[in-house]
């Protein structure tokens, strides 16, 4: 299989001025950005360490306009990069050199709300939280809840297959997308999936979700909505060690209880969170576990008693139940602030995103601690415990000679540990630009070549978001970049989670 990389083929120089005129004819003057200072707004996504100014930015308002832009890009042989809200953490929406960004932020309409059939049709620029806000009066919500939900777009969620704290019980974006309208590379418009659960033929919806913008631009999405649970309870349990917290989660899941969420923080993460938001976490705990249960009130009460007993058996030294919604919010606050809070205990840090089989948590954390000691660096850990998604925070000080480099190396080594235990290099942040060098740790050449066949079937010219997810030989072995706060985090609009 030959894979064409536009950067490698010596294409004739592009007349961008002419392209801009033709694009403007498609999207109108408000839909085109060509001034250098305005283009810089689009030079990075949430992975702000990586930057590249695009050649042009288009903001189409309809599927037809997206189609027009895509067709022009193909006629000119220019790469293009779909973009939602730009909150992605792996550089998926970062422009490539000479590219046209296709920003979907003007396609923000909720097109249809069908409560009896529990589905909603939206445009890609609709923000995640708007869907819930729209259906909440009917007793429904949209289940996938990334902590960026106030600002991230449904189109971006689809491309990243985003999850949230509650995906343990309710599933990821892919479990909630029924159908898609997609402008394929080349410009054809197709409908994948449909309004019902199963459409005959290949599950192209399934393959498009999580494809990180490599297979086309989606312009319409049919989502499922979920009935709001009648009752919610949140339990905080403190343990002397992380092993105890891990054991409690295993006990809960082993008892056949599927919590809505189960989150663990280690001592260092607790210290950081306390310093930042004063959530009132037990200060000398070795680890805390947050368990949220939801469902029928009597059932939740029964499960709650069971969970409490299991935590006690696993050695919990303190158990706290949130009395009301307000206290629940406070208890969650420390957890939700954990990433940004790392800044309280370290000048710099890298947020990593790896997955392990849940039961191996104590072992993996010991390995990570040992590795950290070898590197002379501290690692704090927050953990979506129910599904094994680990977010180690590698702490360092870039004023110390060579420390940043060591931290980046350590962050990469941690991913290798995850894969070594049968896990994954990313549970929710995606591969994007950041982790493409680590794909060979997880997948063989044959695996990746096979994945490329899918890419090539949809996107043979490789003009649609090139250079992302799969490594090119030149770029193998890249290490992930350090954490820099996203402007949204600085503005207090969203927390990483």
């Amino acid at each position: 299989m030959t894979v064409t990389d536009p950067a490698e083929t010596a294409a004739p120089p592009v007349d961008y001025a002419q392209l801009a005129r033709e694009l403007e004819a498609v999207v109108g003057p408000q839909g085109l950005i060509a001034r250098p200072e305005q283009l810089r707004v689009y030079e990075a996504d949430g992975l702000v360490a990586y930057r590249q100014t695009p050649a042009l930015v288009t903001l189409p308002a309809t599927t037809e306009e997206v189609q027009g832009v895509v067709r022009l890009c193909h006629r000119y042989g220019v790469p293009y990069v779909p973009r939602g809200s730009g909150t992605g953490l792996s550089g998926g929406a970062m422009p490539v050199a000479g590219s046209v960004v296709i920003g979907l932020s003007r396609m923000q309409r909720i097109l249809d709300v069908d409560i009896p059939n529990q589905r909603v049709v939206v445009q890609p620029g609709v923000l995640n939280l708007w869907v819930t806000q729209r259906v909440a009066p009917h007793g429904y919500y949209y289940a996938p809840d990334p902590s960026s939900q106030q600002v991230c777009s449904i189109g971006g969620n689809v491309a990243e297959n985003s999850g949230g704290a509650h995906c343990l019980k309710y599933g990821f974006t892919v479990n909630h997308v029924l159908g898609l309208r997609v402008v394929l590379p080349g410009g054809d418009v197709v409908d994948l999936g449909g309004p019902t659960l199963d459409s005959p033929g290949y599950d192209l919806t399934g393959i498009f979700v999580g494809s990180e913008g490599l297979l086309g631009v989606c312009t319409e999405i049919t989502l499922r909505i979920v009935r709001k649970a009648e009752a919610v309870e949140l339990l905080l349990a403190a343990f002397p060690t992380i092993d105890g917290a891990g054991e409690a989660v295993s006990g809960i899941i082993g008892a056949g209880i599927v919590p809505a969420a189960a989150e663990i923080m280690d001592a260092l993460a607790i210290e950081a969170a306390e310093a930042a938001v004063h959530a009132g976490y037990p200060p000398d705990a070795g680890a805390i576990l947050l368990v949220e249960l939801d469902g029928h009130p009597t059932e939740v009460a029964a499960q709650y008693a069971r969970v409490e007993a299991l935590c006690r058996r696993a050695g919990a030294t303190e158990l706290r139940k949130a009395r009301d919604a307000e206290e629940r919010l406070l208890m969650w606050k420390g957890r939700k602030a954990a990433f940004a809070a790392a800044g309280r205990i370290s000048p710099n840090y890298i947020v990593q995103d790896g997955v392990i089989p849940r039961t191996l948590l104590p072992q993996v954390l010991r390995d990570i601690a040992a590795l950290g000691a070898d590197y002379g660096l501290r690692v704090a850990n927050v953990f979506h415990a129910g599904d094994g998604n680990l977010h180690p925070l590698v702490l360092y000080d870039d004023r110390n000679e060579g420390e940043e480099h060591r931290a980046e190396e350590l962050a990469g080594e941690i991913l290798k540990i995850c894969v070594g235990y049968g896990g994954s290099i990313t549970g929710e942040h995606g591969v994007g630009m950041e982790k493409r060098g680590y794909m060979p740790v997880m997948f063989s050449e044959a695996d990746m070549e096979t994945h490329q066949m899918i890419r090539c079937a949809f996107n043979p010219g490789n003009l649609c978001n090139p250079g992302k997810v799969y490594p090119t030989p030149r770029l193998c072995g890249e290490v992930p970049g350090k954490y820099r706060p996203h402007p949204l985090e600085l503005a207090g609009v969203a927390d990483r989670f």
Partner: protein
Amino acid sequence: MGVSVRAASPEALRDALGPLVGGRVRAAAEGDSVAGVRPAAVAEPGDEAAVAAVLALADREGLKVLPRGGGTQLGLGHPPAGGDILLDLGRLGAVVEYAPGDLTVTAQAGLRLTDLQAALAKEGQWLALDPALPLAATIGGIVATNASGPRRLRYGGVRDQIIGVRVARPDGTIARGGGKVVKNVAGFDLPKLFTGALGTLGVIIDATFRLYPIPAASRTVVLTAPEPAPLCDLTLRIIGSTLIASAIDVYGDTTSSEGPRLAVRFEGRRRRLRIRRGAWSRWRVILAQGRGPCAAKRRIGSSGAGCPSIRPGRPSPGWSAAPRSSCC
């Protein structure tokens, strides 16, 4: 290879296949035909390497391969445009890796669902799929046909449970997608692409799934009505309510002796089901909102606990695939 084995003869083809599959090759019998297409040879590879070798041979020689699991759904899709080798995956029947604590399992394509469920039941777990013919259906076939049953309502279908897949491409290359952890967004979602692909993209070697605990108890209630419409109406009401049903089926018709029926299954801890039964008042509200005919033709059930239209019933045939659960 000088002479094409296909051009030579069926015997030559079987001779070429023999060494690749440890001699497990034979002429096709009548029962091996797929939608009227009778292949020249049936090969039964015992491992992944043998599957790959057969496919590589077929690729070189331009031969058509028909993968087969339990053979229960071979009529799905278009009839094959010819077929030289029937690839019977029945010997790929192992549980590759079972991690009860992580609620995940990797099973080979030829493993029968019933055998997998038996292995999982020892740990109180199950693969939450209840397709038709579980005694014959194999894991590979279930994935390839996207087969599910009534309880998809609660647990989702194959695409919602599969987290990893190993496949042999038509050229014999082995490739993997997904993984064995439930949360994973690295690379394209190959498992979903192979779900429902009817074997047209390659041969599934094994698949990894997330598992669920077997519910401690299961109760089914059945309602009748003179015509299906009110039952369908009621279905929407149940789905829109806060009752969490595992499965809802409308079946039977006006010509059958019992008329159209609606079966609703609840699963969970015993205690919880009692609560659900205690919630008949809510049922009554839902029923009262239903259109006339349903309400009019309620059957008085002896165990209906004051709720006349609800009686314990024997639901549709596909319903019975519940592992170790009881129907009242």
